[in-house]
């Protein structure tokens, strides 16, 4: 047996709400499958499972908010399956959105009653995670919303329309099904706990940043980088690329940071239990602002091993999902270093706050035309300020300086990135 717990999706998360289960007892899952959609104060997260096996029991129903570490489901790992509840039919991969179809009656009566249908909601309409989130924000009971999307799916617009409509006569309360054993006395619970996300997000950012400043002795370094080679190369490269494959210069920055950690590994990893734990993998967290306020820094995995084109695809995909408010658990939890680039906002320098338990944050400002002396000549060059916020417990200013110097050097040879 293996336990599937409410994951900690970052230092700032204390609890999460189970929005939706994408599996039901009896379903086979493999490592990396998305099994549930969890709402945190910051975003809607598609949670991946880390073990391969068969879902045995689901212990927390949809709509319930529980602390990090709470047992959400129990999984039978390989070899235990035979002992598990017998299945009426071979387990199939659950569709991403459970179909509203009625459960098929088992061919033979199961020997052990299946707890399956207790938690599964067979009558639920299709709904996107975004619409679900909006429903929570607007406090709309989804049972009252009529879907107009494909196959009757509830869309964000449907939810918003329902929110504006006058309140309908009290809908039949949806009784939370008992999880295990008889619990008929349980009072009807609201399907979802209303969350004001912007206020909640402010709170979690406040908690994480206060913790960072309380615990992490930051040191700060800054360095002006001549970007003429990088920008010249990028312009020529983009001329060759079709519009769908063009690169943004931030991709060069991400790759340079990732490669520089190979030279100065003290920048890449975590400070845990009083010691620095370097990370072999380089997962670069990218600070992405959320337009209604707040920010989130999900990771692009293995940036050091990806081509510029691959990083660009990952970045596009990530920004799209941040804007839509739906991220995956692995992206949220495992960045090993963070990059923040405020170039679009027009500031020339940024000295960031390290996201614990990481130990370094690299900041990039706007690229500006500046006089630049080189080889006894002064000319106008595109210049960018790169900064490092380092954790003095894990590294010193000298190593930090070498790290920034490595980033600068790598950006002078963009064709090698």
């Amino acid at each position, binding site marked *: 047996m293996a336990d599937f717990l409410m994951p900690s999706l970052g230092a700032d998360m204390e609890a999460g709400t189970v929005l939706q289960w994408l599996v039901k007892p009896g379903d086979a899952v493999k490592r990396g499958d998305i099994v549930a959609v969890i709402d945190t104060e910051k975003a809607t997260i598609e949670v991946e499972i880390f073990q391969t096996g068969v879902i045995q029991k689901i212990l927390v129903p949809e709509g319930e908010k529980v602390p990090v570490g709470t047992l959400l489901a129990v999984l039978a790992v390989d070899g235990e399956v035979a002992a598990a509840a017998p299945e009426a039919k071979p387990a199939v991969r659950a569709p991403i959105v459970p179909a509203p179809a009625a459960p098929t009656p088992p061919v033979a009566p199961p020997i052990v009653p299946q707890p399956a249908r207790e938690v599964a909601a067979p009558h639920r309409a299709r709904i996107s995670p975004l619409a679900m989130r909006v429903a929570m924000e607007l406090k709309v009971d989804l049972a009252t919303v009529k879907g107009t999307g494909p196959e009757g799916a509830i869309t*964000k617009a449907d939810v918003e329309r329902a929110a504006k409509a006058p309140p309908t006569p009290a809908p039949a309360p949806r009784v939370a099904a008992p999880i295990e054993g008889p619990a008929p006395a349980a009072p009807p619970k609201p399907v979802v706990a209303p969350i004001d996300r912007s206020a909640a997000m402010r709170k979690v950012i406040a908690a994480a940043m206060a913790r960072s400043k309380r615990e992490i002795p930051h040191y700060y370094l800054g360095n002006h980088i001549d970007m003429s080679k990088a920008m010249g190369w990028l312009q020529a490269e983009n001329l060759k690329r079709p519009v769908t494959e063009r690169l*943004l210069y931030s991709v060069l920055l991400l790759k340079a940071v990732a490669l520089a950690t190979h030279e100065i590994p003290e920048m890449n990893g975590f400070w845990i239990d009083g010691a620095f734990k370097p990370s072999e993998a380089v997962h670069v967290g990218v600070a992405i602002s959320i*337009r209604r306020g707040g920010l989130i820094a999900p990771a692009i995995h293995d940036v050091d091993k990806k081509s510029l084109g691959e990083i660009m695809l990952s970045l*596009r995909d990530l*920004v*799209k999902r941040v*804007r*839509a*408010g739906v991220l995956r658990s692995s992206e949220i939890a495992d960045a090993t270093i963070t990059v923040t680039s405020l170039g*679009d906002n027009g500031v020339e320098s940024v000295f960031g706050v390290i996201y614990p338990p990481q130990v370094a944050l690299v900041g990039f400002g706007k690229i500006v035309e500046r006089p630049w002396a080189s080889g006894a000549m002064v000319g106008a060059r595109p210049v960018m300020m790169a900064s490092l916020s380092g954790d003095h417990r894990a590294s010193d200013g000298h190593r930090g300086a070498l790290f920034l110097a490595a980033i600068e050097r790598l950006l002078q040879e963009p064709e090698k990135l």
Partner: protein
Amino acid sequence: MTDDEIKALFLRELHRIAPEAELNQIDPAVDLREQIDLDSMDILNLAIAIHEATGVDIPEADYPQMTSLNGCVAYLHSRAG
């Protein structure tokens, strides 16, 4: 493509890129970077979506011409004509 078709396409993609924006309150003459805080990634995604729907190849240097609704319509006309 007619103006209305271009506008519909533009707004549809904009909704995908900035789901929180109130599309019926967009001023078609004003740069969306100022209006609804689009960044370079959003503009690129818009260019990609319009390219995929119309087949018009949009050079990077032309992105600034299509950052408003009216600008995009005018730009696509100039490219098609």
